[in-house]
């Protein structure tokens, strides 16, 4: 199949000024920023942006955030997990106010992306805030009327740490061909079968597409989680090149 160029491609990357238009709480430690980015070229689900903060004395620092929303004009949503000793996330999570400007550049990244024209079944495995780029895929599938069958397996510490919980419940009900399963690592809700545990071979075997179906697999989460899940998928017979991974940092869920 012909691949269209990745949005944002074929030109050098410049910083743009975005403005916060809305803020939504997702969990006690994660929130979604709705940004207006004039001239935004659109994006593929799974792409990210670099966000840059500059202090009055000129000190500047940047971080990379996955885009949470489907492509929609000049609006862009980022879901930010607050890292208490972090340099950027506490500012984005607590200080940046509606109307404030923030610099960003993107979209970037052409590897960990899903195209709604692809019809192969898709397995999504998320650990903690690794759900963010996978949610962009779920939302893009819905917005574009994509027909690919999706199975999402989401590992969270407790039910309160489940990002997009209400929307995932609704989409699992309303989006034909989308299944969502959860694994709880520390505290499970009433009625969930089994004890809190780390996601293991049995969970992947039960809830992901079998290797015979040649699904596209997208795994995103903390480094240790991603390594473990990718090893399980490959041990279950998935072709390594069909297992796309995105690691976002040190700590485990």
């Amino acid at each position, binding site marked *: 199949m012909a691949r269209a160029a990745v949005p*944002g491609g074929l030109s050098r990357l410049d910083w743009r000024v975005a403005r916060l238009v809305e803020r939504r709480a997702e969990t006690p430690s994660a929130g979604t920023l709705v940004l207006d980015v004039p001239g935004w070229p659109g994006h593929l689900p799974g792409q990210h942006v670099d966000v840059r903060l500059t202090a009055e004395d000129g000190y500047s620092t940047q*971080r990379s*955030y996955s885009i949470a929303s489907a492509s929609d004009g000049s609006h862009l949503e980022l879901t930010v997990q607050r890292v208490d000793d972090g340099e950027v996330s506490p500012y984005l999570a607590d200080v940046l106010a509606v109307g404030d400007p923030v610099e960003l550049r993107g979209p970037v990244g*052409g590897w960990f992306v899903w195209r709604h024209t692809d019809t192969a079944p898709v397995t999504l495995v998320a650990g903690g805030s*690794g759900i963010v780029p996978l949610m962009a895929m779920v939302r893009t599938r819905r917005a574009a009327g994509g027909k690919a069958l999706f199975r999402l397996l989401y590992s969270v510490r407790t039910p309160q740490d489940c990002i997009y919980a209400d929307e995932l419940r609704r989409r699992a009900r309303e989006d034909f061909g989308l299944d969502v399963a959860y694994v709880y690592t520390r505290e499970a809700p009433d009625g969930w079968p089994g004890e809190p545990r780390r996601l293991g071979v049995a969970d992947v075997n039960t809830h992901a597409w079998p290797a015979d179906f040649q699904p596209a697999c997208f795994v995103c989460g903390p480094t240790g989680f991603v390594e473990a899940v990718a090893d399980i998928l490959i041990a279950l017979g998935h072709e390594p090149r069909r297992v796309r991974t995105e690691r*976002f940092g040190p700590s485990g869920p």
Partner: protein
Amino acid sequence: MDRFEGRYEDGDFTDGNALAGPLREIFAVDLTTASGRCAHCGAEGPVAALRVYAHAPGLVARCPSCTEVIMRLVRGPSSAWLDLRGAVSLHIPLGVE
């Protein structure tokens, strides 16, 4: 999602997806989909799958098979320094016009 926040310990790494922005500042195409060959062990794979250590000065990308350094990228105030010592080649998809 945030790749560089939080306290890194020895051995912590993220991956080549995190190079997308820093490399797009230099190159006109996305290099994370480029397929590279490790000069040390010969393993082939996408730049996106490299192990990236972000707690060094700059970004150090290592081969996921043998952990030798493939590339290093350091951004200064007015220039970038890119060391590609560990890559024999990069095969870069250019999309379809």
